[in-house]
């Protein structure tokens, strides 16, 4: 996995791979802990993603949004 923050979809795909690997068994301790930690990080990331999607509900007329954007 590279340093770029994965998208939600990528994170879920990686999680699936990690869980499947761990469930297959035969891992050493180091590897197990490494995978566990990566999985826990991905879970945290996904939950953060979900919570950032909640927010303000704006309902504006075209003129209102345009003048609001002008002020920015």
């Amino acid at each position, binding site marked *: 996995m590279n340093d770029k923050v994965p998208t939600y979809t990528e994170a879920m795909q990686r999680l699936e791979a990690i869980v499947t690997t761990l469930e297959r*068994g035969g891992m*050493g*301790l180091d590897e*197990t802990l490494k995978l*566990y930690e990566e999985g826990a990080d991905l*879970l945290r990331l996904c939950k953060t993603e979900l919570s950032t999607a909640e*927010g303000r*509900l704006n309902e504006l007329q075209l003129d209102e*949004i345009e003048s609001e954007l002008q002020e920015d």
Partner: protein
Amino acid sequence: MTGSGSVTTGPLPIGQFVQLVKQTVVRDPLFKNQALRGEVTQWKQYPSGHTYFSLRDRDGQMKAVIWKGRCAIDPNIKEGSEVVVLASIDLYVRRGDIQLNVERIEPVSILGELEKTKRKLIEQLTKEGEIDRQRLPLPAIPKHIAIITGAGSAALSDMQRLIENRWPGLRRTVIGVLVQGPQATEQIVRGLAAARKLSDPVRAKQRGEPPVDLVIVGRGGGSPEDLWAFNLEPVARAIIASPVAVVSAVGHESDVLVSDLVADLRASTPSDAIERVVPVLPELYYLLDEYQDRLGNASRRQINDNMQRLRTLHARLRVAPMEGLNRAKAEIFSLSSRIKVSANQNISAQATRLAQFEASLSAIHPQRVLERGYSMTQTADGSVLSSIDGVEIGQSIILNFADGSADAEIKNTHQNEGEK
């Protein structure tokens, strides 16, 4: 008498009855804002400004009126013209006549012209490669949706209700525009431009919200002319130019609109758009919880297996030298010395480590250990330092604590007594 089902004792005055009929008829949504097609007869424009005519075809006809200033009337419309009108039913109580109140009227020949323009535009866009261009991916989790549609429209309330059902409080900005009539095209294009500004990360940061990452542009169903703005080049170009994915969500069944052809996703109705882009939040959480359980269980099992394996190995190694003694003393001597070195050093170190793991089985995570005041030392390339062996003076190391890390340099080294 009020409402249906009430009983009257005497005959009802006809005027009252016609009034009742009118109330029932005008309330029926089927008779409101219907697009109708037919031939114009008895076309009469009065000096008062009102225009009266009948709309007919082979099977029937109805009187119609265009009140003064209600809509623009194409000067080409005359007796015998084929037209499409947008009209609601009304009942003229004084005469008991049912008539159409016309809101818009277009000669059918104009529709033909529009069709031709649309076909040309599609040809042009195909030639430019816009119809087959690579589409932008839709975000799995939309963090800020811009919805461009008629303010206060039924389509909008449908979408709002559906979003709240699927993901309560999902961030969205509704840009209310006119979606039909002469100003529709320009307003939709401006709406898309506003959404584009909201998708700019720098501007979004200033506004303190995530940038728009998905745009839905659409409206509910209507007559072909009502939807026409979505067939025009400015709208098509604005959709193509969008830096984030655009969903075309116009309620219609048969005819494909140009906006459908150029958008990143074509939805059949505004509600369909929501169902296709807004995930159901509880389902997402359920999936994450499931992964969390599986991850924890699988990891615990792995650690238990590892400890079991090492315990067995340790036990076998302790008896192995005794068994081998009778067969080859010399070999055993060398073996046992190797075991002393490697087994005692490595295996018992592992076993000790495992015993520690066992002790802290409930707190698997290294973080727990760090929180108790231990720190973990890593070399610059990230491997963990667990022995003084190979540590050099002047070497850069990283010290990891529970709540952070520190870069450090080795000043001196000391070997513990009896370790070598």
